[in-house]
């Protein structure tokens, strides 16, 4: 397995480094922006200019526009999701379908390693890399809060956020890996993975903005990922993280079973 991990690291180093650096830079930038604006008074001024009906609707939302709330929002920003998914989906799509497409799988699978070992190496590498870019982002948030004199989040909350971030991305990885185990082209598999992630994000957004559609929220992966609750309120729902981990485990089990039984290449 060590041989496969070394190969994966060499192959994907550029992607991981780029995504990790951009995520860290983005989180650091969020801290810089938040430090340059008085978020609370800005929110109050916005509310004061709104008609009474709109004030009723938007006041609860804008009440969360604190410095800490905005920094937490950085972890739910589409850019953050896109970077995490870029790593999770590309690793999963290349893991099986990409190797089948390139033809290299024929020579690798003829070596004395089991197919289970091959898939496990992909999984271990993906989790490690998602944790790495998440860790870089979290470090950048902590560093940004110190550099720009923002109230720092307790380290425990940052670690719990990292855990939920990893859970969400590995769930996306697992689903895409399941597609990959059936596929022969990395591009099509990645497209399917992006589609699932996009759909999940949209379902969560619709459920959050439209009370009558709130019931669809639990059908989204993103429903179980709430950085604001973790960072600002210090609330960590272990069951929700476990649910994401369960999705990952089930999807990976499907991928493993399919890969063990399929003909190659």
């Amino acid at each position, binding site marked *: 397995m060590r*041989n496969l991990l070394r*190969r994966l690291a*060499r*192959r994907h180093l550029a992607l991981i480094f780029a995504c990790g650096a951009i995520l860290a830079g983005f989180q650091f930038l969020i801290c810089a922006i938040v430090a340059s604006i008085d978020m609370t008074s800005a929110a109050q001024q916005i509310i004061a200019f709104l008609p009474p009906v709109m004030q009723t609707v938007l006041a609860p939302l804008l009440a969360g526009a604190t410095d800490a709330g905005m920094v937490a929002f950085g972890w739910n920003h589409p850019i953050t999701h896109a970077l995490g998914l870029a790593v999770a989906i590309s690793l999963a799509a290349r893991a099986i379908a990409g190797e089948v497409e*390139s*033809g*290299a799988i*024929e*020579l690798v*699978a*003829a*070596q*004395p*390693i*089991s197919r289970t*070992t091959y898939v496990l190496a992909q999984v271990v590498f993906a989790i490690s890399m998602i944790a790495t870019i998440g860790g870089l982002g979290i470090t950048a948030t902590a560093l940004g809060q110190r550099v720009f004199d923002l109230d720092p989040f307790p380290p425990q909350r940052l670690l719990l956020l990292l855990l939920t971030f990893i859970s969400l991305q590995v769930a996306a990885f697992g689903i895409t890996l399941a597609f990959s185990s059936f596929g022969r082209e990395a591009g099509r598999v990645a497209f399917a993975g992006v589609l699932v992630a996009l759909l999940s994000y949209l379902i969560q957004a619709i459920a959050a903005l439209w009370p009558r559609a709130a019931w669809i929220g639990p059908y989204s992966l993103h429903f179980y990922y709430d950085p604001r609750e973790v960072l600002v309120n210090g609330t960590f729902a272990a069951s929700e993280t476990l649910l994401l981990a369960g999705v990952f485990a089930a999807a990976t089990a499907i991928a493993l079973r399919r890969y063990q*039984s399929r*003909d*190659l*290449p």
Partner: protein
Amino acid sequence: MDGLAKNFGPVQALRGVSFSVEPGEVFGYLGPNGAGKTTTLRIVVGLVRATGGTVRLFGRSPQDPRSREQLGFLPGDLHLYGDLTARQLLDYFARFRPAQTPRQRAELIERLGLEVTVLPRRVKFLSHGTRQKLGLIVAMQHDPALLLLDEPSNGLDPLVQQSFREIVRDFASRGRSVLVSSHVLSEVEVICQRVAILRQGEIVALETIEQLRANVVRRLTVHFEKAVPEQLLKLDAVTRSETDGSTATLWVRGDLNPLLRALADARVQDFVFPEPDLEDIFLSYYRSAPVSNA
């Protein structure tokens, strides 16, 4: 392997294929494109699962990764990691067998004429022939007990092909077994002791090269000084004949002594009787063998 069968949906790719490769033997596996040669090799390596029959590799199932520890494999459609250098590629595949040092690597590099300057270059910048050499070294560098080669001379120039044949012979002389799948018949003829001919998923012949040669229908062209002797065309050894004036073309098989005696009695001006090659043998079997469920 015994009674090996493989279906791809409604298509029967292999039907009851049975043979074994003995230690020290170079075994040829011949057939036209689509006959099932590559599918057979992929089943042996564990890439493809058989629909029926059994395959044992050193007493183990091909799905058992331990069965591949003493195996070297060169795919017919070779794809290597283009982002690695040639040396990194060889090291990568060598590390899958940490207990076996790639002891044959240096010798193979030299005998296949792989220039030292190639090793630090990325595989994607190498020619097709050089990549094929790398594929051969990947398959053979750990000196495996069984070597499976699918169309091994693809892209190799004639000089390197000659070296490759010598390498295979030396390999077998150390008690290693080699299974060569090919449609380059002259190559198999030179290096193999036994040959199986595959047609539409079925083995139509499994014999030594000598037996195959004995069974072949050979073409003899004779130019007589006068008319072609009639009794010549009625001999048992003559399976078919064509005459054109004083020239006779005879397709002959089996015991040729009666034919030679008949020719000795006639006034022969010239004759052409080329050495039979596997092409003739192959075509004889391929054209004549009946195929069930075809």
